C-alpha cells in the first residue's frame, strides 16, 4: 500500500482523487454507489451568491468520446447552501470543497466570505473559467489582469485553502497560472471545459440552447495533460489535473505531467463508482512499480 496522501495548501487529502464540480452533485447523489469517505475530496456543485436558474434546456449534447454542457451554474445560492445543504454534507468524512463562481468580483468575495465561516469546508475552488454564463465566469479567467483581480480580492476574504480553476480557452494558460499564484492562490486546477459547438444539420440550429457549451470527457484529455504539463513547469504551487480521466492509467498520466492530485468529472456519468476504482488503481500501479508514495511519480516525466 503506497502512501497516497497529498497536501494542497493546508488541505490534507488522504488520496489524490477528487470529484470535479458539477459532475458529482453534493456527493449524496452517489452514496449508493461508492463509499464517499474513500474519495480524497468532493468538490460540490458551483455555488454563486444568488440563486441562479441556469440556462434553458437543451443543455447537453453527446460528442464522440465526450459531451458538451451549457448548464450555466444552476444553483440555489450561497445562503441556501449554508442553511440547507451544508448541514447534510458536513459530516461526510472527507474534504468537502465548494466551487465558487460569480458575475462580479464583489459576488466572488461575498460568497467566499460565507463559505469561510463553515467549519467543515476546508477549501474552495474558485471558478474563473465557466464558459456558459454571460457575465463573469470565464471572463475573469481569460486574462491575467482579470484572474489577478478576482484572486487578489478573494484571497483577502478567504483564509483557508484557495484553489483556482483555470480555463483552457486561452492562448497561454501558464501565464494565467503564474498570475494567480502571485496573488496568493494555494493551488490551480485545470482544465475546465473547452468551448465547443454541435449543429443539427436538418434543423440548421445549434444543439444547445445558448449555441455553445463546454466540452468534457476523454476527447479533451490530451489537451488537459498538455496544459497541466505546461502549468506545472511554470508555477511552484501544487497543480490539480482534470479533463477526461476515466481510469487509473489516465490519472497517472496527469501525475507524471506534474499534477499532485486529480479530479474526476464526466466519467462519473458513465460509471458512478469510478472514483474509488481510480483510487484503488493508482495504488495498485504504484505498488506494482515499486513506488512507496504517490509523490515519486508527480512530475516524473522523462525527456523523450
Amino acid at each position: 500500500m503506497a502512501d497516497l496522501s497529498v497536501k494542497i495548501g493546508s488541505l490534507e487529502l488522504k488520496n489524490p482523487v477528487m470529484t470535479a464540480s458539477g459532475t458529482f452533485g453534493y456527493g449524496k447523489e452517489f452514496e449508493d454507489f461508492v463509499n464517499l469517505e474513500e474519495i480524497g475530496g468532493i468538490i460540490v456543485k458551483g455555488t454563486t451568491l444568488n440563486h441562479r436558474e441556469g440556462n434553458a434546456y437543451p443543455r447537453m449534447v453527446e460528442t464522440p468520446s465526450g459531451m458538451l454542457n451549457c448548464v450555466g451554474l444552476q444553483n440555489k445560492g450561497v445562503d441556501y447552501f449554508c442553511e440547507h445543504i451544508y448541514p447534510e454534507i458536513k459530516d461526510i468524512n472527507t474534504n468537502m470543497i465548494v466551487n465558487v463562481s460569480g458575475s462580479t468580483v464583489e459576488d466572488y468575495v461575498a460568497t467566499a466570505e460565507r463559505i469561510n465561516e463553515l467549519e467543515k469546508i476546508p477549501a474552495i475552488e474558485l471558478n474563473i473559467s465557466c464558459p456558459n454564463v454571460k457575465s463573469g465566469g470565464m471572463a475573469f479567467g481569460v486574462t491575467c489582469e482579470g484572474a489577478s483581480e478576482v484572486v487578489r480580492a478573494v484571497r483577502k476574504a478567504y483564509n483557508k485553502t484557495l484553489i483556482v480553476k483555470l480555463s483552457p480557452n486561452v492562448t497561454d494558460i501558464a501565464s494565467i497560472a503564474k498570475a494567480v499564484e502571485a496573488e496568493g492562490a494555494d493551488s490551480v486546477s485545470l482544465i475546465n471545459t473547452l468551448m465547443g459547438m454541435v449543429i443539427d444539420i436538418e434543423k440548421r440550429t445549434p444543439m444547445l440552447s445558448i449555441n455553445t457549451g463546454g466540452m468534457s470527457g476523454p476527447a479533451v484529455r490530451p489537451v488537459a495533460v498538455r496544459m497541466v504539463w505546461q502549468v506545472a513547469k511554470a508555477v511552484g504551487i501544487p497543480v490539480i489535473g482534470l479533463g477526461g480521466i476515466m481510469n487509473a492509467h489516465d490519472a497517472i498520466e496527469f501525475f507524471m505531467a506534474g499534477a499532485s492530485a486529480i479530479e474526476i468529472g464526466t466519467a462519473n456519468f458513465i460509471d458512478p463508482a469510478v472514483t474509488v476504482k481510480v483510487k484503488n488503481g493508482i495504488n495498485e500501479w504504484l505498488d506494482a512499480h515499486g513506488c512507496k508514495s504517490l509523490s515519486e511519480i508527480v512530475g516524473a516525466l522523462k525527456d523523450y
Partner: protein
Amino acid sequence: MKKYILDLTVVENTTPHPRYVLLKLTQEAPLPEMAPGQFAEIRIDGSKNTFLRRPISINYVDYAKNQIWFLVAKVGEGTQALAKVQPGETVNVVLPLGNGFTMPASPAQKILLVGGGVGTAPLLYFGKCIKEMGGEPTFLLGARSAGDLLELDMFRELGPVYTTTEDGSMGEKGFVTQHSILKEVRFDRISTCGPKPMMVSVARYAKTEGIACEVSLENKMACGVGACLCCVEGTAEGHKCVCKDGPVFDINDLLWQI
C-alpha cells in the same frame, strides 16, 4: 429506493417490431425493488460514437422469473448497438432511477394509463403493480398502425385495453384523446407516457375535465442521478431534473401551455 450498478445477463432478445427490441435480463441475485415509471441508465458497449449511457424505462419486472424487461426503440447509434446484445452477454445497468408513477390511493380508484409509441413500455409494469394491489388499470394505447401496438397480450392480462390507430387498422381511428372511452368513463387519475404532443393533448383533456394527470418525460440526460443538471424541465418551482425529480411530473407543476 437504493440504486445499484448491475451486470445483468441477457436471457432473450426479440424483435416485436422492426424498430424495437425487447430485452429480457436477469442476474443470479434477486433483482432489487423497483417502482413503476422508474428507469435504468444502460451502458452502451461497442459503439464508437456513443459515450453516455442511455436512459431506458423499465418495461416489466417479473420477480418470479427474476427478470427485468426493456423495450428499446432503435432511434440512434447507441440504441442500435444495444439492440444487438445476444443471450448470454451482459449489459451494465444503473437502476432504479427517478421517481415513478403515483400508485392509486386505493384499489377502487379508476386509473387510466395512456401510452403512445414506445411510451407504452413503462405502463405495462405500472399496470402489473396496480393489479397486484387489487386494482384494475384501464389502458388506452395509441399508435400509427396496428403493427406498432406492442405487448397487447400482456396488457390485456392486466385490465381492459382500448386502442387507437392513425390509419384505423386497429381500435378506433384517430388519436388517443379522441377515443370514445374518455366520454363513457370518468377516471380518477390519468398517467401518460409517449410523444410530447400526445401528452400535451392528454394533459389538456385532463385539465379541462378536472382529472388528476401526470406525464412521464424523456429529456436528454447525462448522469441520471440529479448531479449534472442537464435534463431539466421548467416547473412552477424552477428547473427540475427529469432524471431525479421526474421523470413523472404532475401536469400542474409543469409550465406547459395546456
